[in-house]
């Protein structure tokens, strides 16, 4: 068994290396080795998940993921010497996620909410334990995880929930603004609390 791709650094309160953290945002980067059946299975999974996004809607229930991706690396481009041409014995599944919260909570939620989805994506990877219980799965992810050398987020202090709330609020605020310009001060004083009540879930 080879060593993990990068030595683990100190773990922060978020449960991961400080290099994987930018404000509230956390990076996770994982490679796993794919069995031969995965060459056929994973392209079907990717096609299905992309073509029928509602079927993969459980991802939306993980309200702390900004962006995530799965990629099957089947070959490595050749750039000439001194690069030695790579001959892969297996495809390798690359997974990255940009999320907020804590590493432990993230993996717990993945295991409990996306139990079936995880089997679909990682079931053809060597060494993949069942998503539940979470202990062996966390060990597997830790062993396969690579620490980022530099991680950047454009709005590091914002959680996914804050962003979704803000984006929902924006058109409502615009609409109220345009109405407010044509109201009397008395009408505004009356409608302001109503507006706040309407958008309170976004605040």
């Amino acid at each position: 068994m080879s060593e993990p791709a990068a030595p683990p650094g100190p773990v922060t309160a978020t449960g991961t290396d400080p290099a994987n953290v930018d404000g509230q945002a956390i990076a996770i980067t994982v490679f796993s080795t794919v069995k031969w059946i995965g060459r056929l299975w994973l392209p079907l999974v990717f096609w299905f998940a992309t073509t029928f996004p509602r079927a993969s809607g459980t991802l939306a229930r993980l309200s702390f993921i900004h962006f995530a991706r799965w990629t099957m690396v089947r070959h490595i481009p050749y750039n000439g010497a001194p690069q030695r041409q790579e001959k892969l014995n297996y495809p390798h599944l690359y997974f990255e996620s940009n999320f907020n919260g804590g590493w432990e909570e993230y993996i717990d939620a993945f295991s409990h909410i996306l139990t079936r989805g995880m089997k679909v994506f990682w079931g053809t990877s060597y060494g993949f334990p069942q998503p539940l219980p979470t202990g062996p799965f966390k060990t597997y992810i830790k062993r396969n995880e690579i620490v980022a050398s530099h991680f950047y987020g454009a709005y590091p202090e914002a959680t996914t929930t804050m962003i979704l709330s803000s984006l929902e609020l924006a058109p409502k605020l615009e609409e109220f603004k345009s109405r407010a310009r044509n109201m009397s001060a008395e009408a505004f004083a009356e409608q302001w609390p109503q507006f706040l009540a309407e958008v309170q879930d976004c605040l």
Partner: protein
Amino acid sequence: MSNTSGQATAFMALTPIRPGSEGSLRSYLEALPQAGSPLARLAGTHFARWVIVRDWVNDPAQPREDHLESPYLIFTSNFDGPLDPYLDELCMKLAPEAREIWGRCVGCPPDATGPQLKAYLLHNKIDTGFFVAAYPHATVAQVKAALDARERLISFAVMAQAMPAADLQSAFLAEF
């Protein structure tokens, strides 16, 4: 294959690190500041990262082990709009850092800038299988503007509690 989700695009490049350059590349990347990251110059970037892969992680259940011939640099970005203009911008605005980063990779053009760097990154592009975004139709500018408006509305709502009713409208219109 799906490199897009709504208006957002996923990009990944996997480039071989020159023999003997892994340590200096790692040091350079780790020393880049997060506040004031060079990636902030690319206004459409939501999240991006550089990761160094030294080797595959092999599992005891594998019939054969798999090993890389050299360490590789991964660059991934989640950004607004199509790939072409994004790479044009990256190859121009990130030129000083690109020389230090991809300049340590095999096959990178000597200048590490402009169309040559773009062609190099495209040559080493790995297509994404499945890409998912929580807010696929919102650009970075829209996200930042919406967050700002929400913050200001919360502050205004607190302030408005102590404000005479007759002054509310003018204060609101002045703020928004």
